[in-house]
């Protein structure tokens, strides 16, 4: 069995979530990686994917249509390559979730999203009802299309392998779907999905200014990424890409510090696999304390600066 993993790359390196997808795919069989991009940069991306141990071949396709991972050309590319593979796999990222179901439909396959565990080549565990239940499902499709929840599989290392690189025929660009622009704020902080420590804020922060003045100094001390609850994002305190939860990012850092977050099911679904959880909340009955290893009942505006000072 050979598995095709779509690998997302950024500035010439493979994203950690994609390396987790490679680790998951390695449990199923031999792994080939597909990387795409514009013609100028796809070579460097392919080199990065070729170094990931466990990858035996890298397929690269570069053109303007693929440069922004638009679903339409990328799904067509996956379908054109699918014949050789038993499983088509990607990380359950915003790109994976956008593209793989489209490719699956074209292959007449029911995709299996958010795989947490692989039982055998046909059988997979995935969360339903915001993670309140885990379903083990067996697929009758000849080919499987899977997205992998990155936090459930330790990522394959970035270095150590040396796979062969081949060109794949890139689909022609159409005009029905066009990339217009992207707003992707850059930050010196680690990315939420790969951070060792996350400091997350909720309704208790009251406004965006307090994220800066109260949470940031603590995050700076810890070298942490900053996350947020849905309420904090919906209220406009921070942008949408900060959101941790069922419909935001799923994270599992070594240390997750929840500040002024009550702990709605929706939020817990995104962070309850963190190794150590700290909750700071003035409401001692907040549900977040039911999953926290260490709970501190108190006013965050008093406690958080003290904590930052004590580190």
């Amino acid at each position, binding site marked *: 069995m050979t598995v095709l993993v779509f690998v997302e790359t950024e500035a010439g390196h493979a994203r950690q979530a994609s390396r987790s997808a490679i680790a998951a795919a390695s449990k199923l069989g031999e792994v080939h990686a597909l990387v795409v991009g514009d013609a100028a940069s796809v070579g460097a991306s392919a080199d990065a994917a070729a170094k990931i141990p466990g990858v035996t071949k890298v397929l690269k396709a570069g053109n303007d249509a693929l440069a922004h991972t638009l679903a339409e050309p990328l799904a067509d590319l996956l379908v054109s390559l699918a014949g050789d593979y038993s499983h088509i796999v990607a990380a359950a990222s915003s790109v994976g979730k956008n593209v793989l*179901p489209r490719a699956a439909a*074209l292959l007449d396959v029911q995709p299996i*999203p958010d795989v947490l565990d692989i039982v055998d080549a046909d059988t997979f565990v995935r969360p339903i009802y915001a993670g309140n239940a885990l379903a083990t499902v067996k697929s009758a499709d000849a080919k499987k299309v899977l997205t992998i929840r990155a936090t459930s599989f330790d990522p394959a290392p970035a270095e150590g392998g040396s796979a062969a690189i081949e060109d794949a025929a890139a689909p022609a660009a159409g005009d029905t779907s066009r990339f217009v622009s992207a707003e992707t704020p850059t930050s010196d902080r680690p990315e939420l999905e790969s951070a060792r420590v996350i400091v997350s804020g909720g309704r208790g922060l009251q406004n965006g200014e307090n994220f800066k003045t109260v949470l940031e100094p603590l995050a700076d001390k810890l070298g942490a990424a900053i996350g947020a609850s849905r309420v904090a994002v919906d209220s406009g305190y921070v942008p949408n890409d900060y959101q941790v939860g069922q419909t935001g990012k799923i994270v599992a850092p070594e240390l997750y510090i929840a500040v002024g977050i009550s702990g709605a099911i929706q939020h817990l679904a995104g962070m309850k696999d963190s190794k150590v959880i700290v909750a700071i909340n003035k409401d001692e009955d907040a549900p977040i304390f039911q999953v926290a290893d260490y709970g501190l009942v108190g006013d965050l505006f008093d406690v958080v600066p003290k904590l930052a000072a004590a580190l």
Partner: protein
Amino acid sequence: MQGRPQDPASHRRQRVSGKKTMKILVPVKRVVDYNIKVRPKADGTGVETAGLKMSMNPFDEIAVEEALRLREKGAATEVVAVSIGVQQAQDTLRTAMAMGADRAILVLTEESPEPLAVAKILKAIVERETPDLLILGKQAIDDDMNATGQMLAGLLGWPQGTFASKVELADGRAEVAREVDGGTEVVSIALPAIVTADLRLNEPRYASLPNIMKAKKKPLETLQASDLGVDTTRRLTVVSVAEPPARKAGVKVGSVEELVEKLRNEAKVI
């Protein structure tokens, strides 16, 4: 819309109004209400849903709202709600019509079909209704698949704008702002197209009592999935459904100093 067949009703509307029609189809799903925490059945065959309050999938409410706003600002002329499922799904369709959808279609199936089958049924409905735009919720909060919109787009060969936080229609295209991992991305897609709604696209309205009464008189057509010639055989068999491993509550600490001490010496994470 040139080069695509239109249904007779839309021709009639064009003659009457003298304006171009723009029809939006909004699929809606009946799911366990989002406030309810479901539990696996004791025998592990599924989740316990008997007697639970059912509601429209929250992402679908956002999709309905967006379609209504487009109609209200003159960018669309008709909003049609579709649901696929058991007879009681007509309650969900009445809710969509109470919010403002013009009419509804119920496709009856015996059980809750998988996204692949739903996408095939919707494709058959699209071929009958020839809408210009479909707006779907990005995922249903029961199976959390996040797949139907993308799959339907694939089957139809239409472009897709998923996880939308903003939708604007102009010159036969939709400009869609999408919520992506790194921030926001804007794509421009040619109509007919598929859009899936993310949380921040809008805040859905509540249906007023007079509108709930009015919705009872709006047309609701019922079809059988089998009449559409779609194979709804499940591809996935549920082997078991279980509770996730529980996380134990830890300890409450009395002070910042105690917290720092525990993190350093007990958890060893700082």
